[in-house]
């Protein structure tokens, strides 16, 4: 059987809805695409914990401090699970870390921005985790079985985080004028990064992740799902959105929205976001100072 025959057979398995296991033969293109996607997902879970971590010491109550700490722990745990999935695709955890802190691999655009107020924590917990959950639920149907199993583990925790964020939001929106203003200000600052979350509109025909079933929905389908889920809720809470065009288009059966501009998105992609270097430096510092933990776990003497 030629390589092309094996690739065609592999593609037929995916098109028939079969799942691919780590030990199965897979085309190089599939392996590389899955590795790149899952590695970025893992990077984003770990780096995404940092903006919220900054607010643990400043949480307004013990209950909020406790829940935020638990959420940060969960997010880092998701990173550990996903790095393990990525490792089986042929790249060591050390290499993934090295590529991350040296800017050779990426983490999600929304985690390159500063968190200025407690309102930002509510936006991250509700809207950004909400956007992530829309994406992650779609991955439950992905073609790579170890990734699907990881998503089955991660999605329920993300649903819990969503309730955490929604609870914070409701507290601010039903509070004083100053609290409402704080949340509105956070939404105004984060709306553009949230619009960037799913990436620019792209041609699904050229999306290698869709072709191999590693991703199951287009960027635009995910963005529309996000609009339908969260925009009405925000409006019901009296929170306006900084997009005058944003409205449901009954005839088209989809949301109209304004092009947010993509210059700062591409700056972030190039590793030049407002907090990129600070957060990578922090990540490297933690990796270095906690090396003894990894060494202790890896170097346990075998029982005679």
């Amino acid at each position, binding site marked *: 059987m030629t390589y092309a025959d094996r690739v065609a057979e592999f593609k037929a398995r995916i098109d028939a809805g079969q799942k691919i296991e780590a030990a199965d033969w897979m085309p190089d293109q599939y392996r590389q695409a899955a590795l790149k996607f899952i590695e970025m997902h893992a990077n984003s879970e770990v780096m995404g914990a940092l903006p919220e971590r900054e607010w643990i010491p400043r949480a307004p109550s013990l209950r909020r401090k406790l829940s935020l700490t638990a959420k940060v722990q969960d997010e880092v745990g998701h990173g550990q699970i996903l790095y393990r999935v990525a490792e089986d695709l042929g790249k060591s955890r050390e290499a993934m870390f090295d590529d991350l802190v040296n800017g050779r691999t990426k983490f999600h655009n929304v985690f390159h921005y500063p968190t200025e107020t407690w309102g930002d924590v509510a936006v991250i917990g509700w809207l950004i985790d909400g956007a992530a959950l829309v994406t992650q639920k779609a991955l439950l149907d992905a073609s790579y079985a170890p990734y699907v*199993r990881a998503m089955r583990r991660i999605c329920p925790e993300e649903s*819990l985080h969503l309730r955490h964020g929604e609870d914070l939001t409701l507290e601010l929106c039903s509070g004083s004028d100053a609290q409402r203003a704080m949340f509105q200000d956070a939404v105004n600052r984060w709306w553009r990064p949230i619009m960037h979350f799913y990436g620019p509109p792209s041609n699904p025909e050229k999306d290698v992740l869709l072709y191999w079933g590693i991703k199951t929905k287009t960027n635009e389908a995910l963005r529309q799902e996000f609009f339908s889920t969260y*925009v009405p809720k925000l*409006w019901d809470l009296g929170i306006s959105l900084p997009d005058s065009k944003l409205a*449901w288009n009954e005839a088209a059966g989809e949301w109209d929205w304004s092009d947010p501009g993509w210059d700062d998105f591409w700056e972030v992609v190039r590793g030049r976001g407002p907090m990129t270097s600070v957060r990578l430096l922090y990540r490297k510092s933690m990796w270095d100072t906690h090396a003894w933990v990894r060494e202790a776990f890896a170097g346990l003497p075998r029982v005679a």
Partner: protein
Amino acid sequence: MLQQRVDGDELTVVGSINAPALDVALLLARETHFRHGEGVNFAVRRRGDDEVHMCPDPTALGGVIDRSYRRQDGYVGVGAKLKRVREELARRGLVIAGRRPPAHAQADG
């Protein structure tokens, strides 16, 4: 890693970990996949082997730190709270009347 969701269920594969020894594997499995008390028991099996090593003390699943958060008690009632806040904001005339899908009709005042 294998998980038993409820009594009587078969063990099913839920993920994998790297560990140099069995006790470390059980510890890492618990911390990455079972710290919220998911299921009634779990086990690890070396890749390629048939021998399954059960967790020696499944009663420890989930631990005690942050229990209220883990059991979601910390956020019970969010749905009712959302309804209450929406109604209050509608009464105060703060709801924004944007065009929305029919399934998301505007909250009544």
